[in-house]
Every structure is written in C-alpha cells, then in structure tokens.
C-alpha cells in the first residue's frame, strides 16, 4: 500500500494556510490524491461529481434562508433585543450557558433536532446574545459581534456532540456497537451510553467555564477598543 495519496492532505493544509480560496484548494487536493493513487483525471472528476450529487441532502439547510430573511425583514432581531432587555440578569455568558445546558440535555434525551444552527442559533440565540451584550456595554464593534456569534455556534456544537452519545439509539453508538460486534465483542448500547457521561460532564465544565469567563473578556475587549 502506497503512502502517496496522503499528498492531498499536504495540499489541503498548505492551501488553507496560504489563504487560497477553499473551493480551489479542495479540488486541487482531490486531484492530487486521486492522481497519486493512480486514478485518471476523468475518473476523479466523475467521482467528485457523483459524491457531490449524492450529498445534495446536506444543502437542505439553505432552505431556511428565505424564512430567516423574511423574519429579519419584519424585525426578528430587533424583537429579540427588546425581549432580552426585559431580563435584567441576562449576559452573553449566562445566556449561552443556559443554551448549552438545554442543548446537551435535550440531545441526551434523543431530541437532537429540537435545536440546531439553522433552527435556533441563527434566528434566536445569536440575536439574543448580541442584544444582551449591547444592553450591558452600549454599542459593540463588529469584531465583538462576530465573536459573540461564533460562541453561540460553539455552544450548539459542544452541547450536541457531547450530549447525543448519552442517548442509546444515536447513530454513533450504533456504529461503535456494530464495529465491536464484528471484532467479537457483544456490548449493550446502554454500557456505551453510560461511559459517555464522564466526557459529557467534562465538556460541560470546560466549555461552561469558558462561556462564564466570556463576559469579562468581552468587557476587556471593548475597553481596549475604546482606548
């Protein structure tokens, strides 16, 4: 077996590091790896086309754009701001910790699709977090605004990844069970779920702590920008 196909990974890392447009980098990496593995260019392009077509379902998420656009046109973000202004205790950190808890607990109960980047983060959580920052600190710079949005997205990911494995019927648990079965070990899914709990608690502790310290960090950033 040859190690040459790994060249594609080198192209990928170098391309991303050099700041070249990712679309170009990805196509170049695919061609490099394919050629290194002895495939003909036409064969690689056909493989790209087939996989692209087969994965169209991931783009279902973009259907949400007209809905969000319409609601924003009608003042969704402004309303989220008015709502959060009424909750005196609300800060960016506290709001996102609450969302992290909600996300992790619902994912652990198997309700993974209740929340998500398109379902909740973009239309609700991110505008509320931005509003909470504006109420505390007055107007915020776009740099701080983007940072808050990124943290909102991260709370969703961390909550989902490290919550869903506590639910016994999730696909990753079934994959682990299936693979270990092939290797001769018959393991109840419940045991796998139980052993996901320590990591879930650690994930909450680490990310929760970072979110808790986010408020102070935002304040410091705002102060630095003013001076």
């Amino acid at each position, binding site marked *: *077996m040859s190690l040459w196909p*790994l060249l594609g*990974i080198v192209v990928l890392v170098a391309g*991303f590091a050099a700041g070249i447009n990712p679309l*170009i980098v*990805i*196509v170049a990496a*695919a061609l490099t*790896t*394919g050629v290194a*593995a002895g495939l003909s260019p036409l064969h690689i*392009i*056909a*493989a*790209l*086309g*087939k996989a*692209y*077509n*087969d994965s*169209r379902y*991931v*783009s*279902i998420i973009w259907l*949400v754009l*007209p*809905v*969000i*656009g*319409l*609601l*924003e*046109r*009608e*003042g*969704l973000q402004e*309303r989220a701001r*008015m709502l959060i202004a009424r909750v005196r205790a609300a800060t960016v950190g506290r709001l996102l910790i609450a969302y992290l808890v909600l996300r992790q607990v619902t994912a652990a109960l198997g309700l993974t*699709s209740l929340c998500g980047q398109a*379902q909740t983060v973009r*239309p*609700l959580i991110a505008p509320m977090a931005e509003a909470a920052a504006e109420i505390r600190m007055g107007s915020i710079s776009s740099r701080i605004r*983007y*940072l808050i*949005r*990124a943290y909102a*997205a*991260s709370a969703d*990911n*961390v909550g989902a990844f490290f919550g869903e*494995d506590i639910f016994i019927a999730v*696909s*990753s648990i079934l994959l*682990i069970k299936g*693979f*270990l079965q092939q290797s001769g070990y018959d*393991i109840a899914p419940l045991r796998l779920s139980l*052993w996901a709990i320590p*990591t879930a608690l650690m994930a909450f502790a*680490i990310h929760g702590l970072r979110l808790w310290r986010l408020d102070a960090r935002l304040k410091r950033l705002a102060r630095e920008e003013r001076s």
Partner: protein
Amino acid sequence: MFAGIAVRSLGDRANRRRCGNAAFWGLLAVSFLFGSELGDLANGVLVLALTAIGAFAMGLGSPKTTSVAQREASARARGNAIFMPALLIPAVAIAGTLTLGKLRVGGAPLADPKQVTLIALALGIIIALIAAVVRFRPPALAPVEEGRRLADAIGWAIILPQLLASLGAVFAISRVGAAVGRIATTWLPLGHPLAAVVAYCAGMALFTMVMGNAFAAFPVMTAAIGVPLIVHRFGGDPAIMGAVGMLSGFCGTLATPMAANYNIVPAALLELPDRNGVIRVQIPTAIPLLLCNIVLMYTLVFRF
C-alpha cells in the same frame, strides 16, 4: 429557490458581477433539479464550473429589504408573534423526527428512515415559511429577495459542505484511511498501555480532522490500535474504549473545517467574515477535552 435567486441576480444592475452571480445560482438550481439525470462526469464538470465561478466571479447583489427604522417599528407592532415561525421550525422538526419514520403508506415507509431528521427539518422550514407569509403578508417577491440577500452574503461557501463530502469520497477511493492507519501503527512506539491510549485518542482526533467525520476515523483507528493493543494486548474494556474513543474523535470535529456542516455552515449562516471563526473559539475547548478523554480512558479502561 436558487433558480429564483439566479433570475433576480441577473436583473440586479447595482452588482457589476451580476452575470457571475446568476450563473452560480443558476448552476446550483440545475444541480438540485436535474443532478440525478446528469451523468457522474457531467456532475463533475458542473462542480468544476461552480468552483471556478464561485472563486473568481461573484459579487454582492443589492436586493430590496427594509431599513433598521422600519424593522424596529415592525418589531414593536408585531410583538412576540414574530417568534412564532422561528419556533415552528424546531417544533415541526422534532415532531416529524419522532413520527415520520413510523408512518407507512401501503406498507412502504413514507420517508426514507435514514433521512427522517433532514426531511422533518425541511418540512418545518417550509411550514414556517408559509406561516410567515400568511401572517405578515410581505410583497410577493420578498421571500426570494430576502433569500438572495442571505445567499449572496454566504456566497461560494454555500457549496463548501457538498464539495468537502466529495473530497471525502475521493479520499476514500484513494485509500487515504489505510495509509493513515499504517503510519499510526508502524511509526509510533506503542509498547506501553499509556502510549497506546494516547495514540488511539489523539489518532481519533487527528484522523477525524482530516476526514471531517469521526465515523470514518473510528473503524480505521479501532482496527489498527484499539482492538489489537488496548483490548487484546493490555486487557482493556472494549465498551469504555469505544465510547471514549468516539468522543475523542468529536474533539477533532470541533477543530476542523472539513466538518463543514458544524463549523463552516454556521459561520456562513451567521455571516462571519472569517470562515474559521467558529473553529477558532472551539479549539480551546477541544484540546483540554481531548486531554481529559486520554486521562479518563487510561484510568478507567484497564479497571472494568
């Protein structure tokens, strides 16, 4: 939706690169409408064309929307009713996920059981769109124009998730996974239980970063290191190894642009100028969490 955006882009005289935008959204519409009828090679050429136009020839359109003042007035007038369509999306998505898989028409399942979550999400979005149009009565073209506003803001990144999935497929037929597994087993000193645990957990995270998916990494790393070394040679517990190993892979998912669904799509949806903005704030969680996983596995796997 993309066809509508393409047509409106072509008429947008404020955008000097309107032909590029129209071609990009038009080709995307072709892919969604006729992708299954085109052959693999034609789809491949379509991907190359989208890549070239997306990288070099797109501008920002200027669709009609409302001003900040209008939005504040509207937010006051509409009250919390404005949240109703936004809340409908998760409500329908969860109800659909729980029920759609069980519905049967003439003995055949109504929805592909593997795609129930996505179908339910799409259903939730469509119902929310109808509710928003009925409730707020916007101009007829507003859904397309608002969709175009956000789609232009996302730009070429809209095809990134699918393109990364295609790269994963090329990696798979080029046997990149096997090559990584070989490096992991031949070049690493794995004579001690701790070394095996570190190699397995860190390998899961790194391999997941390359492939963008912990599910692709798990079989390779577990067959190369997990089962032969941690379980057979050192007598570890397979359940703990599997559970914590997979979660080590998820630490890698937090840190890679290859996991475009989780990291690049949100950055685009939230209109972050830095496509890696979400990854940047997740890496400081991913690294200590991976260390925790290594410690957890080392202390637990040989005890139960």
